[in-house]
Each structure stands twice: as C-alpha cells, then as structure tokens.
C-alpha cells in the first residue's frame, strides 16, 4: 500500500514522464505521401523488387479508400500530406553488438527503463526496440537462433527470410483490409518479425518497444508473429512518445498466425503521449491487430493496458478457424482529461468447438470518452461455439462518458453466446470503508481501481504487471476529489 502511495505522490509531480526528446540525428523523408515516397522508403531499406510491388499495390488501394468515420471519437482530420513517413535514427555502419549502438540512443532506452544491457542480463527478456519506426537493436538474437527462433527487425527479415515474409505478410490483415492497414502496408518502415519453429517453446518473453521521437513524423510499424505447430511464445509490446503540441499518427499492423496446437500470448502496455490537460497534442493511435488460429487446438490471447494516446482506435481480433481453437481478449482502457478511446475486439468463430472470452474494463475520468466496441460472430459451420463477454465501465466524474457497442451475430443454433455489461461509479460506501481505515480518498480510488482491473492485470507477465499498475495510478492522478 505504501508503495502505491509513494507512486502517486511521485507522479503527482510528473505529468508525463516519458515526454522527452532524444537528440539523435535522424535520416528523414520529406513530408507528404506519393508513390515516390513509397519507392524512397523501399529503396532506403534496400528492399527486393517484390516488396516494393507489394507496397505500391497497397498504396494504390489506399488512394481509393476513404477515411473511416464510424468510430465513436472525434478529432480534426489528419493531413496525410503533412506527415513524414520515414524517420530513421542515423546509423553509419552495420552494428555487430549492442555496444556499438549510439550512446545517446542507449541513454534513451535507459530513461525508458529498458536499459538494453540490463534487459539482456537480468530480466531474460529479448527486446527489439523500434524508434520512429526503425528497429534499432535486438537483444538475445544469437541465443534465440540456437533454438531456431527468428526474432529480428522486419527489414532484416525481408532480406534474410524472404520466403517466410512472402508467405505470411498480409495473410491475416490483407493489404486492403482497412484504410489505416493499407496505409501501413504502403509505408511501414520497420517492425518486428518473430518465427517460432515447430515444437519450440520460447524460453523467454519477447518484447518490442516503440517510441516516436522526431517531430512531424508518423510511426508505421509492422509486426508479424508466426507460431508453427506445437510452439509457444509470449510477446510484449510497449510504447511511449515525447510531449509535443501537435498530434502525431501511429498506424501499426500486428499479425499473428498460430498453427496446430500453437499458442501465442500478446501483451501490450500502450502509453503514447495522451496530450496535455486541455487536450492539446497527443498521439492518434489507429492500430490494426489480428490473429488467426488456423490450426486445431491453437490459442491466441491478447492482453492490453491502454493508458495513453489522445485518440485510440484499436480492435485486436482473433479468427478462430481451427477446430477447438481458443481466442482471448483482456483489456483495461483508461482515459483521462480529453482522451478518447474506441477499443474492443472481434472474435470470428469459424471452426468447430471454438471458444472465446472477452473481458474488458473501461475507466473514464476527466472529460474523456471510453467506448467498447466488439464483434462476436458465429458462422453457420461453427458447431458448439462458445463465447463469454464481459465489459464493465467505471466512471470517475460527471463530465466523462462510457459507451458500449457490442455486436453479436449468430448463425448456428448450437452456439452459446453470453454478453454482459455494467456501468457504475465507485460506491461512496466503498470509499468510506477505506477512509475509515485510514486511506485517503485518492489512495482508496487507486486501490479500488486496481481491484476492478485485477482480472486483466493477472494476465500480464510479471514485469509488465508492475508497470501497468503504476500506469493506472498515473493516468488517473488528480481525477478524484
């Protein structure tokens, strides 16, 4: 308890503690988007011809598409011609080891609390760090390679494992899936690629850290995880951005493929800069995340803690194609001040005996709006499909909003689908109970909220859970009393 108190006290002083800018010389493309920019990015990355074709195809599709407006968020239109689509920290030579990484860049990671050295030695987490959409360092690569696991930046994967990329890239989120995924397909500058071979259980958590650093840039990273038969991997993703008055765009795509008996666990702690108290600045987080359980008995589990971003628009989904496959979605979304979040999931039941579980906890404070939007679809052939969804919302203050938009489409009579949702505020009796026992109101609220979110927090890997709990407290700092 005392630890939580001090956390809150500390954070009362610091508003957004990840809001610094690193002075790294960046290699940038001029603002604007055209075929030339797509070619520029592809050339910069020394990509093969087929990759360029793939990007151009996506770009041409994107030009024909319209900005989606159905989500329950409002923000000024994004000027896609004002964004720089490529910004790479300048590197002069090929790196052989981590020691050769730009010291200033490494200092950045230390500030982020993911000192590469430390990560490498102590926590046993393999990290792929992405700054301004370019992967700068991947730790533990050799150790993983011994087991046949490929964990590298997307650019590297395109060069070294073209057969895998050709086979899987865009197989879950097709190029034309939606406006932002098409944009991402055209201009993505880097990301992570992870391949777990047959029967291998990845012995450590794999992790990616994203950071937008340069001004006026958009970040478009691409993550692809392929889990072969009988394999297992737990993957973590974290993100931060500097404080700026302008809005920056983040449009990532994450694809996961789980084959027979494979299991993938994907955890996100999203802490992009949310804008200041008046709602100025912050990241637009328009992300497409989707996994496919294409093999029998496979499992994909999404866990997310969403505290950052000015506007979030994100629906990690699972296509349950293989018989007996399982999809899970655990989410805590916290919005404060003028943040807006429209987030949820899609569970598409195609195979027999497929199961899905959705637990979504939304917490709104200040002037923010928090929406859950989810789809549970049972196809005609999905015999004995089972779904349970629960979405609870907590409102702190009378200027915020909590919304729920669950879509349930059932075309099979053996399906069993349940959905329940509640919205309420923290009970005065609960606060009173805590006050009586010597906890001040703010501490009491932090305690109750952590309890409210526990079901989701329990799904997070240990080191993330600690960070996420602190983030919850920080995000809601000052919203009570």
């Amino acid at each position, binding site marked *: 308890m005392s630890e939580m108190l001090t956390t809150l006290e500390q954070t009362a002083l610091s508003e957004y503690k990840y809001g610094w800018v690193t002075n790294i010389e960046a290699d940038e493309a001029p603002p604007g988007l055209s075929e030339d920019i797509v070619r520029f990015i592809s050339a910069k990355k020394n990509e093969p011809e087929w990759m360029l074709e793939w990007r151009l195809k996506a770009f041409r599709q994107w030009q024909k598409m319209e900005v989606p407006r*159905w989500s329950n968020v409002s923000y000024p239109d994004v000027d896609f011609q004002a964004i720089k689509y490529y910004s790479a920290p300048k590197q002069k030579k090929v790196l052989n080891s981590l020691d050769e990484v730009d010291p200033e860049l490494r200092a950045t990671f230390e500030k982020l609390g993911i000192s590469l050295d430390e990560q490498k030695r102590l926590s046993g987490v393999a990290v792929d760090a992405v700054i301004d959409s370019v992967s700068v360092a991947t730790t533990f690569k050799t150790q993983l390679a011994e087991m046949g696991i490929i964990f590298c930046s997307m650019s590297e994967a395109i060069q070294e494992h073209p057969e895998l990329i050709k086979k899987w890239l865009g197989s879950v989120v097709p190029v034309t899936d939606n406006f932002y995924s098409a944009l991402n397909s055209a201009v993505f500058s880097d990301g992570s690629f992870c391949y777990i071979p047959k029967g291998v259980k990845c012995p450590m958590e794999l992790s990616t850290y994203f950071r937008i650093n340069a001004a006026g840039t958009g970040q478009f990273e691409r993550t692809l995880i392929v889990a072969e038969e009988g394999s297992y991997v737990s993957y973590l993703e974290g993100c931060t951005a500097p404080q700026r008055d302008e809005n920056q765009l983040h449009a990532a795509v994450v694809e996961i493929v789980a084959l027979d008996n494979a299991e993938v666990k994907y955890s996100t702690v999203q802490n992009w800069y949310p804008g200041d108290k008046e709602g100025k600045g912050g990241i637009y987080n328009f992300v497409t995340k989707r996994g496919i359980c294409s093999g029998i008995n496979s499992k994909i589990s999404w866990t997310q803690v969403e505290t950052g971003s000015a506007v979030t628009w994100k629906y990690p989904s699972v296509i349950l194609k293989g018989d007996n496959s399982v999809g899970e979605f655990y989410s805590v979304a916290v919005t404060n001040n003028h943040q807006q979040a429209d987030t949820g999931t899609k569970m598409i039941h195609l195979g027999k005996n497929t199961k899905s579980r959705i637990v979504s906890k939304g917490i709104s404070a200040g002037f923010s709006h928090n929406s859950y939007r989810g789809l549970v679809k*049972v196809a*005609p052939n999905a015999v004995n499909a089972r779904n349970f969804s629960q979405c609870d*919302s907590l*409102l*702190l*203050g*009378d*200027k*915020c*909003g*909590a*919304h*729920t*938009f*669950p*879509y*349930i*489409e*059932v*075309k*099979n*009579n*053996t*399906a*069993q*689908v*349940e*959905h*329940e*949702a*509640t*919205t*309420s*505020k923290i009970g005065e009796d609960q606060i009173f109970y805590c006050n009586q026992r010597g906890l001040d109101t703010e501490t009491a609220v932090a305690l109750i909220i952590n309890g409210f979110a526990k079901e989701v927090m329990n799904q997070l890997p240990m080191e993330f859970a600690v960070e996420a709990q602190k983030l919850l407290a920080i995000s809601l700092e000052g919203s009570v009393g």
Partner: protein
Amino acid sequence: MSDVKELIKNKIEATPFSGNGSLQALLKTGLQVLEQEGIPTVKHEEWKYTRIASVLNKNYHYAVEKTGVSKTDVDVVRLPGYESANELVFVNGVYHAELSKILSPKDELDILTLSEAVKTDYKAIVDKHLGHSAQYHKDGINAMNNVLAYEGLFISVKKNKKLSNPVYCYYINDARSAKILSQPRTLIHVGANAEVFFVEEEITLGTDDSFINRIAEIVVEDNAQLHIYKIQNEDSHSNCVKTTHIRQIGVSKVNSVTLTLNGGMIRNNLNFILEAPGCESHMYGLYCVKGETHIDNHTIVDNVQPNSFSNELYKGIIDEKATAVFNGKIFVRQDAQKTNAYQSNKNVLLSNEATVNTKPQLEIFADDVKCSHGCTVGRLDEEALFYLRARGVGEKAAKALLLYAFAGEILDKIELEPIRKYAEEIIAERLDFDL
C-alpha cells in the same frame, strides 16, 4: 428505390397541402430529408442488418381514397375483448370514422385528424410534439411519413380520466387488388393523471405485398399511465416499419409489450424519451418467428432527467430460416444522475438456419448511474430437457413446455385480460404447447 420517392411526390402534387403551419413545415423538411438521405442501405448503421430497400423497391400503390373495405372485413380482424373497446380503423393508412366505434365519451377520449386539430386548442400540443421522432431517425423512411403527416390522426386522452374502455387500433392494408404502401400517422396525448390501454394490430387483406410505414408519437403527462401492446401476426408478404416514439414529459409510467409471430420484414422502432425526473418505463418484447420472417427490434431509452428507472426485456425464439435483429440503446445524458437502466435480450435458436444479430448498446455521460445490459444466444438447456424427459415427458412436449415457460415471462406483462389470454393461445399454438 426511386419508385417510392416518386410515389410520395406524385401524391403531394395530386393533392397539394399548403399553408404555414407545423404540418406544412414537417412536409417541407420531410421532402428535403427524403431527397438527401434517401432509403437507407445496409451501410447505414441503424439499418446494418435489415435490407429495407429491397422490400420497398416494389411497385406499390398509394391508394388512400379507393377502399373497398367494409364492416364485414373489419369483423374478421377484430381482437378479443372488442365488445367493450374503442375501435379505431385505419384503411391504407387513413382513419375511417364510419368503420370505427368510439365508446368512451368525448370528454374522455377525443379523436380528430391532425389537420383539424391544428385549428383547435390542440394546436399548441401538435406544434410542440409532432415530428419529434425525426430527431432520432434521420432517414428517408421517417421522412416519408412526415411528408404525409397531415393525413394523420390526433388522439387526446383527457386529463384525470381513467379510460375503462381500451383503445384498439386496426391498421388495415387492402392488398386484394394491388400492392399497397401505407403511412399511418398518429399523435397521442395522454393528459395528466389519465390512464389508458392501447392495443395495436396490423392486418393485410388479400395476398399481394403490402408495406406499412407507421409512426405513432405519444406524449405522456404527469402521473399518467400508458399501456401499449402490439400484436404482429401477419402473412409473409406483409412488411412494416413501425416507429413508436414516447415522450414522458411528466413523472409517468409506461408499459410496452410487443409480440411478433409472423410477417415478412418487420422493423419496430421503440423510443422512450424520459424528459421528466423520476419516470418509469418498461419495455417487453417477445418474437417467436419461423419461416423467413425478419424481425428487427430497435429500441432507444434516452434518459434526459435524473432519477428515472427503465427496464427492458426482449426474448426471442427463432426457428427455420427466420432472422432476428435486436438493437437496444440506452443513453444517459449528463444531467440524468441516479438513473437506473437495465436491458436484457435472450434468444433461443431452434434451427441451424436461423440467425440472430444483437447489439445492446450503452452510451453514458453521467457518473452516478446503475446501468447494465446483457444478452444471450443459445439453444434449450440440455439439463432442463433431460430433467423433464427423465420424468416421463416426451421430447416434443418437454421442449414445448420449456419454450412456453421462456415466453411466459413476457406474456405475463400484459395486463389486459382478454388480450393476454389471446396472446397465450397464439403463442401456445405456435409452440405446440397444450395449454
């Protein structure tokens, strides 16, 4: 699609209705919206699961004047308990006094057309409330009816009167010689301390296609009580969009029960706007459909003022190739603190070709509220079935018993004795249950 638009425009040109009142204003804006929005497609969020355009795109006739409907035709469609009921008969969308029967005295129940009402003391009420539903339904369907609202009916239930005779409304489409489109419109005012029962039924005569696009706007004053029951049991060539828009402008209580058994494409819009603090609203629905019936229930509860209570329970039994759509919205505005709003939608699928699309939706802007919604889709409880079968009940009878019990929860909410009995009979018959 353009056919329907043309039809409405031709009708307006044939019998021009001019002037500067609220009816004319509604006509003008209706035409504008119809032109701008057109007939909604599945891209319209509110019509995502209901392909209305394909049903509307038939060569309907808009035959208000020519009706061959006689008293003997009305006899066939009467509902039980009609002896002591006020019966209002609408043919092809328009009220026919000579076919109707009013038992209540004029100081309890006053009925006149909307174009007459605006010339009387009722003008203020009409001006204030007519067309309010358009704020909640910005589409060509609602607009179409607004254009022709001047042909509608105004019903006033006088204050301090508890009507001993319920009001039965029969909406008859005469499709014996042609495809018929009709657009009945009513504005009902329930005065302070009044209590009234409304029972509504749509009937299509003949075997041709028919489409009823009906709007009922209802205003409920302080301490009034309104009970409104709908029975939908038509043929598969009868389609309808029914909008019931209830404004509770005083502390009042409203009970609504909607039963659906048969029909082609049925869309029910049921809106409750709780504009006074402390309102109470109950909305119950039972859809027990088979064949290729498409039943779409869209409900809105808009909590504007604090301390209101609303409870919504919709249950469905879907068989054969039928499709059920449910969309329940609860809005809690910023001022509507201490709102309690509950919503539940339960579905049983009996066949492998049946479909359910459900979307219970909450939009909450006040913090001190208790709101919940839940929905389930599944088949009959295997264990309950086993329990009955172990005790010697045959499979068919056991299923019927369980389904009837499932439906019974809604039927019990009908407080009008003859109507409840009738509803129990038709539901029991549908489910093969021996009463």
